[in-house]
């Protein structure tokens, strides 16, 4: 079963990440790298991406002729999606375990951030027993 693990950060998250000492930034990046490596080696990795700063984001709507209309400013939100993993695991418990591991990524001073990771099941094909 596949799960998406969504890493959310507060409005100030990108700026405070960028203002950490170099050593802490490097430790965080190394942590994410080793987490992805471990997921590849365990045969559970499907994909993982980090998203650019929400200040670069645009909100798009279709106009009259289907033309894109972009809002100038990305709306203020309490939390932003900073990145995600999609994993293929044998149980929901294993997905929670991996989420907890990601949550404990190091922040300032190398201390675990314990950021909230939203775990959602990815929908699958129709069930076998459907008749």
């Amino acid at each position, binding site marked *: 079963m596949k799960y998406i693990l969504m890493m959310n950060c507060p409005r100030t998250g990108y700026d405070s990440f960028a203002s950490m000492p170099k050593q802490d930034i490097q430790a965080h990046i190394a942590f994410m790298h080793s987490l992805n490596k471990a997921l590849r080696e365990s045969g559970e990795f499907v994909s993982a991406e980090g998203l650019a700063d929400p200040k670069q984001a645009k909100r798009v709507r279709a106009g009259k002729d289907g033309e894109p209309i972009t809002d100038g400013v990305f709306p203020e939100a309490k939390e932003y999606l900073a990145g995600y993993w999609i994993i293929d695991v044998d149980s929901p418990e294993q997905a929670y375990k991996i989420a907890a591991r990601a949550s404990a990524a190091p922040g300032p001073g190398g201390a675990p951030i314990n950021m909230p990771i939203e775990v959602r*099941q990815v929908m699958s094909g129709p069930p076998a027993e459907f008749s």
Partner: protein
Amino acid sequence: MSLLDSATELLLRDLAPQVLGSIIRRFRDFAVAEDAVQEALLAAATQWPREGVPGNPRAWLIQVASRRMTDYLRSEMARRRRETAASAELENVAPAPDTALEPEQDDTLVLLFMCCHPALTSSSAIALTLRAVGGLTTAEIASAFLVPEATMAQRISRAKQSIKASGMPFSLPTGRSGNLEQTQRLRAVLHVLYLIFNEGYTSSAGSHLQRTELSGEAIRLTRAVHKLLPDDAEVAGLLALMLLTDARRAARTGSDGELIPLTKQDRTLWNSNQITEGIALLTATLSKGSIGAYQLQAAIAAVHDEAARAEDTDWPQILALYDLLKRISDNPMVMLNHAIAAAMVHGPSAGLELLDALDADGRLTGHHRLDAVRAHLLELAGDYSRAIAHYQTAAARAASLPERNYLITQAARLRESTG
């Protein structure tokens, strides 16, 4: 293997377990042998379309795989810096392949026992079975399961490590406890084949076309096991169940991938050849006396398949079969289907009473199927407002997109027709 015509591809897949068995016997290393055979299959897939299929394709594959094994062992020995002592050793482990004299031994069953080892998770067993016995490439398996190739390669490699660590010999279990162990291991093999079939069968039409090949692969492998163990009634039962289920594939989804329940399917789309074959297999096993869970499920599928129209379905017979199945299987899904059959024979309130027993049982608590069946039976009973509520609860709990869409559509239909 896309360069090959389908007959040659099938030939390669049939030869894969035989070649692997032969290489393991010679070199006694399952994990490395499996890689070497995979390379030989890939070599065949690129060379044969150019140069033609060799006169003895099995010998050709064994020779190429043996060469790979020898190369591997040589580099492994070089790595260990034991060249002098090792070259003598190499002569012993890698004799010139005298394939013409080698008896044709079918190792499919031994390999299946190995790949479906109880130490493996089912996802690992499935992947390894498809590669080592089915002869599929890692890329093909990865694409069928919608994961990156590197992820699938790791899954297969870890599965092989687990088998190696288990110290399992490459042979069928023998001795006093051998028969019992063989029965248990065969049960594990049949379960893995059943899961492979479902992986393919549960993919929706259109979007994941390559996944449907998994059902065909499961049928092919189960057929091979049936050929080796023609007197095993459960093997025949599983093969019959697969054929009788797969026969309905074309009618099971609409043009947008939406699910069509059995009662609404266009039965002229059902595959009559598969139905005929499934029923013949089943009839032959039932005359042998012993009855297992796969045979009973196949028998239920056969009763559905034999009805030309949904209203012709022999529900009393299905109910009787579920009564039998309930006695040998402690699966709550069986109890759920039993409740549907009871409702069709004795009316919805009889079915709803059985669902109350399932509530008390607790194992399906929170499972969307319990809500979906309750909604269906409440609708039959004319209790539309509660039916709508349960369709909606079921939809919120479903993890399958087509099924979720089906359930919300059911709720909407009922709201509009009763509101």
